[in-house]
Each structure stands twice: as C-alpha cells, then as structure tokens.
C-alpha cells in the first residue's frame, strides 16, 4: 500500500479543477505499476461481483416476499382494523417534524430551495414507484405534503415567536406518551396487547424508550464515577465495570428470567418493558463511559472558576461542566445510541417480534422458504438508513455546536 500524507485528502474531495478525466485517472488510478495492477484487480473483482449480484437480483431472487409482507415488516401482527391509529401517529410525527424543521430553518431565505424541492419530489416518486409503498401512496403522499406545509408554518411561527423552540421540545416529549397511548390503547381506545406490537414499530419504540431511559442513568453514573465522594464513586465504578463485562444477550435473556425473580412474588412486568429495561440498564454503563470521557476533557479551571463565582456543586455541574462535556461527547453518545438501535435486534432472541424477529418468522413461512438473501438485504437497508441518518445528524449537530471556528 502506498501511503500519502493524510492532509492531501483530509478535507473533502480532491481538487478536480483543471484536471481532465484522463489526467485524473492517471493520477489516482494508474500512478505507477503497483497502483495500476491494484486498479485492474479491483475492477476485475468488482465487475465480476456486480455481475453476479445483478444477475441474482434480476433473475433468481424472488422479491414478492417483501411487498406481500410489508405490513408485517412495518407493524408486526398489529390488528389491521386498528391501522388508522398508526396513521394518526405518523401524521402527528410528520407534523412535528415539519414544524421543527421550519423553526430550525427560520433564518434561511428560501425554505424550499432547489435541493429541498428535488428531495421532496424524489421521496414522492419513491413512494409511488416502490411496490411495497404503492398501495398506501394515497396516505403517504399527503403526509409528505403535511411535512412541507408544517415547515412553512413553523418558519413563519419561528420568526414571529422566537421562544417557540422550547414548546416544540415539550411537544416531542408529550408525543412519546401520545404514541404509547395510540399504539397500546386504553383510555377509551381498544387495548392492543404488547404481543401484537412488532416490526419496525417495535424496533423504533424500543430504541427510543431505551435511549430515553439510558441517557439520564448514564449521565448519573458518569457523574458518580467522577465524583469526589468515595462511596458514590465505588458504587458507580462497580456497576459500570460489571455490566460492561457481560454480553448484552446474556443480560437480556437473564433479564427476561431474573427481573421477575427480583420483584415481589407474583408480579411479572410486561415482556417488552422487561426487555427495554434490560437494554437501558446495559447501555447506560457504556454511555457513562462516553460521558466520562467528555467530563475529563473539560479543563479543571472551568469548575474552579464556577466555584469561585459562588456556584454550588449542582449548579456548577448543570450550568458549566455538563454543557461543555456533553458537547465534546456528542459523537460518542450518538455512536452509543446507534449501537443501542442495532442492539434492539437482540430482542428477537428473547422472543419479541421486532424487525429482525418478524423477518425470521416470515422466513419460517413455508411459502417463502429459502428467501433469506432477499429478506435480510431488505432489513439491512432499513437498519442502514436509520443508523446512517443518526450518524449524519450527529455530524450536523457537531458542526452547529462547534463554537471554535
């Protein structure tokens, strides 16, 4: 391998100005005999692989397994008669997302720039052309329109009432409970047992609940481990180290068995709840380490300055240390959220029908025997899109919060 200095491509793509395609290829692909050989080998392997993959995807693969089970993949065995509730939930989320987008982009001169219009058109075209979503295009297209409309409203509102951001955060917080109510029923709606929650719906719900639970816990553990009080420090350290030494699957499986054992005789919390608690308890230990790294990066002088201003310990932490520490730790924290999202796949092992679990039960259907590659590729695309979106969001947030430019 021929190394070059890292900075020659560290910042964005190489400068192509003034470099014709032939000159570019000569510089980047055929600079010497070794490079040329490497290029030829890679091209040969790649074209062979692509040809094999293409011929498999177009001739041998049987794709109907995806559109025929699309409802299952999205919501599991949720009763179809109650799908309207999921649609309402989706509409609420779309409205909130649009509003937040509008408020965040309130200082942009043209909200619907060419790129945004192209993006919206691409999403619309995808909904109409992609076979699994085509049957519900009449519901999905208005949702896209709702996002755009609410974005326009949010931009106007954000300009008129500058403090509206707090209310949107509150609305997101409340929407979580509305979502639980809409999915699970009760309070006037027909109850849906958690056994019927499934698919992407359960994956997202478990991931969001897990993240919401593990963040405060991880924060407390990290503060505890950095604390000057020995008892608090020892307890936090012991918890973090023990949990990080055990595989998640053992934690989850034994959580299913042991949480009932540790509670009063006869009480047995819901399966989904048990799994989410185990997931959150597990992730909190890892999150604590990420936050601790952030805390360690805040210079000692910051804390001393805050103390000398007369702030007490909680105020020093809350106003001075934590905001800086969390900003530093954002990439690691989001990385931990991404891995928590991926870890929800393990719920399928303890018998919950989340996205991967429902995929396995579809594959157990004799009608779709052996359609492994199709189903797993489809699931991989879904997981990839969500994880990549989170990573992208974290990078944007990092840039936005970077005050040192």
């Amino acid at each position: 391998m021929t190394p070059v200095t890292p900075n020659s491509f560290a910042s964005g793509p190489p400068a192509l100005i003034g470099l014709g395609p032939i000159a570019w290829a000569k510089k980047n692909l055929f600079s010497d005999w070794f490079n040329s050989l490497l290029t030829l080998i890679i091209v040969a392997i790649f074209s062979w692989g692509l040809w094999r993959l293409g011929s498999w995807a177009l001739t041998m693969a049987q794709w109907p397994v995806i559109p025929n089970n699309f409802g299952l993949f999205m919501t599991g065995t949720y009763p179809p008669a109650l799908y309207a509730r999921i649609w309402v939930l989706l509409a609420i989320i779309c409205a909130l997302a649009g509003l937040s987008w509008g408020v965040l982009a309130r200082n942009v001169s043209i909200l619907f720039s060419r790129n945004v219009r192209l993006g919206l058109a691409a999403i619309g075209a995808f909904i109409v052309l992609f076979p699994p979503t085509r049957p519900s295009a009449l519901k999905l297209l208005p949702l896209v329109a709702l996002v755009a409309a609410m974005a326009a409203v949010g931009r106007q509102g954000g300009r008129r009432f500058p403090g509206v951001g707090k209310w949107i955060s509150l609305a997101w917080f409340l929407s979580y409970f509305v979502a639980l109510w809409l999915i699970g029923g009760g309070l006037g709606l027909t109850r849906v047992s958690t056994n019927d929650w499934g698919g992407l719906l359960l994956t997202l719900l478990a991931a969001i609940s897990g993240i919401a639970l593990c963040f405060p816990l991880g924060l407390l553990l990290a503060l505890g481990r950095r604390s000057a009080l020995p008892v608090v420090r020892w307890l936090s350290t012991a918890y973090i180290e023990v949990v990080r030494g055990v595989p998640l699957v053992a934690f989850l499986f034994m959580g299913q068995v042991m949480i009932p054992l540790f509670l009063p005789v006869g009480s047995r919390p819901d399966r989904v709840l048990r799994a989410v608690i185990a997931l959150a308890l597990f992730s909190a230990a890892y999150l604590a380490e990420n936050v601790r790294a952030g805390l360690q990066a805040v210079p000692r002088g910051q804390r001393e300055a805050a103390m000398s201003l007369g702030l007490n310990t909680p105020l020093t932490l809350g106003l001075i240390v934590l905001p800086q520490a969390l900003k530093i730790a954002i990439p690691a924290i989001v990385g931990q959220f991404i891995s928590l999202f991926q870890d929800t796949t393990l719920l399928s092992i303890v018998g919950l029908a989340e996205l991967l679990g429902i995929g396995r039960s579809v594959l157990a259907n004799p009608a779709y025997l052996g359609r492994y590659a199709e189903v797993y590729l489809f699931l991989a695309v879904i997981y990839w899109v969500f994880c990549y979106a989170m990573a992208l969001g974290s990078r944007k947030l990092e840039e936005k919060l970077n005050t040192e430019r």
Partner: protein
Amino acid sequence: MAHDSSDRGFDLKAMLRDERFWKIAFQVITLVVVILLLSFFLGNLNRNMIQQGKTFGFGFLRNPAGFSIGESAIKYRPNDPYWRALGVGLGNTLTLVTAGIALTTLVGVAAGIASFSKNWLLYKISRAYVGLVRNIPLLLQLFFWYFAIYGTLPKPENQIHFFDLAYFNNRGVYIPWPGTAVLALLGIAALGVGAIAAYYLWRWRTNIRIDRGTGGLPQTLALASLGLGLLLFLTLGMKWTIPHGVEGGGVTGGLRLSREYVAALSALVFYTSAFVAEIVRAGIQSVTKGQWEAARSLGLQPGLVMRLVVFPQAMRVIIPPMNSEYMNLTKNSSLAFAIAFPEIYSVATTTYNQTGRPVEVFLILMATYLILCLIITLVMNQLNRAVQFKER
C-alpha cells in the same frame, strides 16, 4: 482548633450550610438507598426461590448434563457432568475468539491503512466498507452469512474446492491441518517464539551495523537458519493432512470447520474489522504532518515511511481503543448461539433450561466473560506499555 462545640451549642443552620456535612450526608443517603434496594431485590429473590422450592448452590454442576454438543475441542459425552459441558462451551468460545481476534487485527489494520492509499478505488472501497458494515446490526449480518452465504453453498455431492486444498459445501469448510492437536499447538508456539527470536536477532544485527558500520554476518546467518528451520518444521514436521473429496460427496482428511463456526467467525471478523479500521485510521491521522515530511525528506520510500515512522507512532493511539474492540468481539461471540454454534452462552442457556437455575448460571456466565475480558485487558496493557512514549 480552638472551637469548642459545647460552648457554641449545636448550630443546625451552620451545619446545613457546611459543604462537608452534605458530602457525608449524601454518601450515607446513597449507601442507605442502595442497601435498601439490594435487600428488597435479594429478599424478593429469596422468597421467589423458596416458593419455587430451590436453594442457592452450585452442586448441580456435578449432575450429568444429558444433552449432546455438536462440536467440541475436548472429549465430551452426553452423560458427562454439567461443568464439563460448560467447559466444552468455553473451549468453543475460545477457538472462536482467538481466531476472531487474529483475523480482525489483520483485516482491520489492512482496511485502515487502505484508506490512506493513493489509489482512489482502494480508498473508496475502504470507506464504503466501514460506512456499510458499521451501520448494520451484527445479528443481521450473522444470519446473512449463515443462511444467505454459507447456507447456499452446494450440497456435498457437488461441493466446490480450491486447488484441492480446501473444500466448501453446505456442511462446512475443510482446510489442511496438522496431524494432531498437539502438533498444531506446537506449530503455533514455534511460530511465536521464532518471531520473537527473529525480532531480537534483527535488532542485534541493526545495532551492530550502526555501531561499527559493517559486520553482523553471524546474526544474518542465524536469522537465515532460524527461518529455514521454522520453514522445515512447519512444512514437514507437522504431519499435515490435506482434505480430499470423496466420490459421491463428502471429504476425508483435513480439518472440518462447521458451517456455524465459519459463519460466526466471518460475521465477527467482518463486523469488528470495520471498527478496527476506523481506529487505525484515526491513529494514523493523529501522527502530525511533519513526521511524514521529515521521513520523506530523509529519502525513505513511501512503504518505509509508513512502517518505520508513522505506524509505530500511531500505535500509541491505536492500542487503547483496540482493547475495547477485542472485548466487544469476545462478548459478541455469544451471538453465535443464535445460529446454534455451541459456545459457552449456548451451553449455559441449555443448562438453565434443564436445571431452572437462572441465578447460578448467570453468575457463571458473568464470571467467565469478566475473566476473559480481564485477560485481554492485561495483555493489551502490557502491549500499551511497550509502545508508549519513552520520555527521558
């Protein structure tokens, strides 16, 4: 120290303002809450176990297990006791983890260095690999390897082979292997000792040549004979058995790696290597530009710049996070139970199902993984000490 509390009386307000009081009070409160919670949980556990008619204890480990295990490194029969079954599981975990760590290091470092290649295609492939693999759950990848890749290999009747050296069919992969397990271990040990000896000989030779400007011939000869001896031992002394395809399907000779093992190994290596590649990349990027330029201005070739100047410095940044990647690989190896590879977690689950002793089994599992992680940490700390800055 002139204050006399009996003089001033007990001042509650002053005490509430005193930070020292709150420090102690806070710790006492925390301790009391934790003890209360623990006693609540353990009391419930006790009551639940009494209700189910069980007592805590590890005596069940001596009872016969009564289940068979698909593959094992040590001898095992179904009527052996539970502890032996768990030992078989541990052996399988260890074979998976050691092979996984070795291969992950190779693939990950290669992928990390590839992202600094001058070749645009190689650079893009390395980036795409990392971006793709890190964003797909490991369990999904594991199922993909097991069902969609190794599961679609041909049946033994029309198995495929690689120059008659390795055979592939849907029951597993067959590779050449030393005649006995002892010889295999001996070969690995010889390779390790030989590599260390060669390293020190090479350093000795370099030092002599630096001091005197010439010489070092005896060391060169010793190096050559060491290499030759190792080569001879590894090729002729190991009683290699080569797999042979049998007419009508099946393979004799060689070592059979079950489909479960190969799939688990592939998934673990493929997944963890992407993280290792990012660590290596970050490590190399942490070496300042001046080091590259200084090395090149000394006239070193690009390959030597990386090997002699940049990589040794990058090692300092690379080693600490590698520790946690190796621990992740060890813990993630428990996922192999989802494709029925009988590693320790899988055996432990069966043990729990048969004996109904979740607490004891969980403690055994926890202790096992903690010890494995501790061993990795110890080794990596030694390595870390070796590569750190030697500041004078």
